[in-house]
C-alpha cells in the first residue's frame, strides 16, 4: 500500500514524539519538548490562516491569552473543571475571532494584519489592567488539570514533565491530523485557491469573505487551546502570553519552518523554542544571533526551512 502524504506526516510526527525521549539526558528535556509541542499546536492554526489562506494575523497571542486566562479564572470563579475551561476559552476565542474578523476580513490587503495587531494588544492590556480579576502584570496561578492524578489512580505513573510531554504531544498529533485533513478537502482547496488568486477564487464561486472568516476562527481556536495548555502546564500565567512578541513569535515560527506545511511549521516551532536555549552561549549577543539566523533563512530559503531542504534533497535524487 502506498502511503499518502497525510499518513506519512502523521507517522513521522508520532515516531518523533514517541522516540525522542530515548535520547533525553535528563527530565528537563521533557519540559522543553512539551513547550515545543504546545507552540507547535498554536502554529498549526497559523498554517491554516497563513499557509493555506494566505492571511496574516499579528494578534493571535490575544487568543492564546483568552485560552490561558480561561483556565486560570473559570475554575476559581465559575467552579469549572480545568478541562472544561479549555473548551470555554476556545468558545470565547471563536466568538471573539468571529466578531473581530467579520468586519476586517471583508477588507483587502494588510488590514487584517494591522487590525489583528490591535486586537492582540487590547487583550494583553485588559489582562494587565483589570487587576481585580487577573491580578495584573505579575500573573496569576492556574489550577492543576488533574489528568495526571487520574492516570496515577489508573496505575500509570508519570512525572510531571513526562505527562505534559506526552499529553501535549497527543494534542499536537490530533491538531495536525485536522489540519492535514483540511488540506486536500474542498474547503482546504478553496482556501488555497483564494491564496493563489482571490479574484479567480471568487469567479469559481468561492465566498472569499466567509472562508477567510472560517480560517480565522479555526486558527483562533488553535491559539486558544495552545494558550490553555501552556497555562496549565506552567500552573502560572502572565499577560505576556497575549503580548505582541508572542504573536510575532507564532508567525515567525510558521514562516521560518514553512507555513504551508504541517511538519515545517512544527519544525519552525521547534527551532525557535530551542534556539534561544542553545544561543545562550552567545550571552548578550543571543538576540542578535537569533535575528541573524531568521534573516538568513528568509533570504536563502523563502519557502521556509523544511520545504526548502526537502526540495534540495529531492532535486538531488532526480
Amino acid at each position, binding site marked *: 500500500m502506498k502511503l499518502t502524504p497525510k499518513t506519512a506526516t502523521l507517522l513521522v510526527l508520532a515516531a518523533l514524539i514517541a522516540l525522542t525521549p530515548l535520547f533525553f539526558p535528563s527530565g528537563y528535556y521533557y519540559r522543553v519538548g512539551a513547550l515545543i509541542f504546545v507552540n507547535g499546536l498554536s502554529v498549526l492554526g497559523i498554517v491554516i490562516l497563513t499557509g493555506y489562506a494566505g492571511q496574516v494575523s499579528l494578534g493571535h497571542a490575544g487568543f492564546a491569552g483568552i485560552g490561558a486566562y480561561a483556565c486560570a479564572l473559570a475554575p476559581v470563579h465559575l467552579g469549572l473543571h480545568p478541562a472544561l475551561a479549555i473548551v470555554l476559552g476556545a468558545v470565547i476565542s471563536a466568538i471573539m475571532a468571529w466578531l473581530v474578523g467579520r468586519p476586517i476580513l471583508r477588507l483587502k490587503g494588510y488590514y487584517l494584519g494591522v487590525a489583528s495587531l490591535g486586537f492582540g494588544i487590547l487583550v494583553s492590556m485588559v489582562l494587565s489592567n483589570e487587576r481585580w480579576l487577573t491580578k495584573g502584570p505579575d500573573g496569576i496561578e492556574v489550577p492543576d488539570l488533574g489528568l495526571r492524578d487520574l492516570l496515577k489512580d489508573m496505575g500509570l505513573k508519570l512525572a510531571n514533565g513526562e505527562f505534559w510531554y506526552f499529553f501535549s504531544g497527543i494534542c499536537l498529533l490530533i491538531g495536525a491530523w485536522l489540519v492535514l*485533513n*483540511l488540506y486536500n478537502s*474542498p*474547503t482546504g482547496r478553496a482556501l488555497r485557491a483564494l*491564496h*493563489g*488568486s482571490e479574484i479567480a477564487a471568487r469567479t*469559481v464561486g468561492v465566498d472569499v469573505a466567509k472562508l477567510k472568516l472560517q480560517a480565522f476562527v479555526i486558527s483562533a481556536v488553535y491559539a486558544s487551546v495552545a494558550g490553555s495548555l501552556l497555562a496549565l502546564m506552567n500552573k502560572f500565567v502572565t499577560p505576556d502570553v497575549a503580548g505582541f512578541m508572542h504573536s510575532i513569535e507564532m508567525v515567525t515560527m510558521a514562516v521560518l519552518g514553512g507555513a504551508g506545511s504541517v511538519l515545517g511549521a512544527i519544525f519552525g516551532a521547534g527551532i525557535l523554542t530551542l534556539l534561544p536555549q542553545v544561543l545562550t552561549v552567545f550571552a548578550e549577543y543571543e538576540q542578535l544571533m537569533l535575528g541573524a539566523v531568521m534573516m538568513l533563512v528568509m533570504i536563502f530559503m523563502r519557502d521556509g526551512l523544511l520545504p526548502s531542504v526537502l526540495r534540495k534533497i529531492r532535486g538531488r535524487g532526480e
Partner: protein
Amino acid sequence: MSLLEIQGLGITFGGLRAVHDVSFKVKPGEIVSVIGPNGAGKTTLFNMISGVYQPGAGKVVLSGEDVTAMSPHLLARRGMSRTFQNLQIFQGMTVLENAVSGYHLQERGPILADLLGLPSSRRRARAAEEGARALLARVGLDRAAEREAANLSYGALKRLEIARALALQPKVLLLDEPAAGCNAVETEEIDHLIAEVAASGVAILLVEHDMKMVMRISNHIVVLDHGEKIAEGDPATVSRDPAVIAAYLGTEAEHAHG
C-alpha cells in the same frame, strides 16, 4: 430569448469615460466577440459584467434576472464563469488541483466535515476530481495533471483556465483573450474548444485580439472604440463597416478575408 443582456453599461474612472452606454445580447449557443483597439474598454466591460467592477450606469441581466454589480461568487452560482487576460492560475497548486477548484460549488460542504475528514467530505472531493480529470483530457492537459501549474507553458495555462471555467458548467462563459500569447497550433486548439462549448448550448462572450480567430468563430461582433460601441453585426458586416475599418481593423480585416 437572450441569456445575457447588457443594457447601456458605463463606468468612469476619475472623470475618464472608460466605457459608455454599451448594449448587446448573447443567446445560448452563440459566440459574441467584443473587439476594438487597445484601451477601447473591452476588459473594463468584461470586469463590469463579471462583477469585478461596479458599473456607474446600465444593467447586466442574466437569464432575466438583474445581476448588475453582483459579487462574482454569486454570479458563479447563477451560471456565469470567466477566464482572465493576464492569467489568474492558483499558484502553488497542481494542474489537477486548479481544475478541481473549478468544482467548488459542487464539492463544497461543511468545514467541520472537511476538518474531520469525514467520508462525505472525501466523497465530494473524489467526485470533483473525476470531473476535473475528464475536463483536463478535453483540453489536452490530462498528462500534465500532477505537475505544478506554475511550470506549464503559457498556452497550456490558457487552456487550464478554460477548463477551470468549464468546471462550473456555466450557462454564460466570458473569455478574455483566450488565444493571447499562443502559437498558431494552440490558437486552433482553443478555437475548436470554444466552438465545441458553444455547440453544447453555452452562451460565449469573447474578447480577442486575433482577428482571424474572431472572424472565423463569432456569430456576432461588437466593436468598441474609446469606450463606446461603434458597430455591431455578423463578421462580414462588421469587417466592411467604414467606421470599424477607420478605428481599428484596417489591413488586418482584409487579411482575415483575403
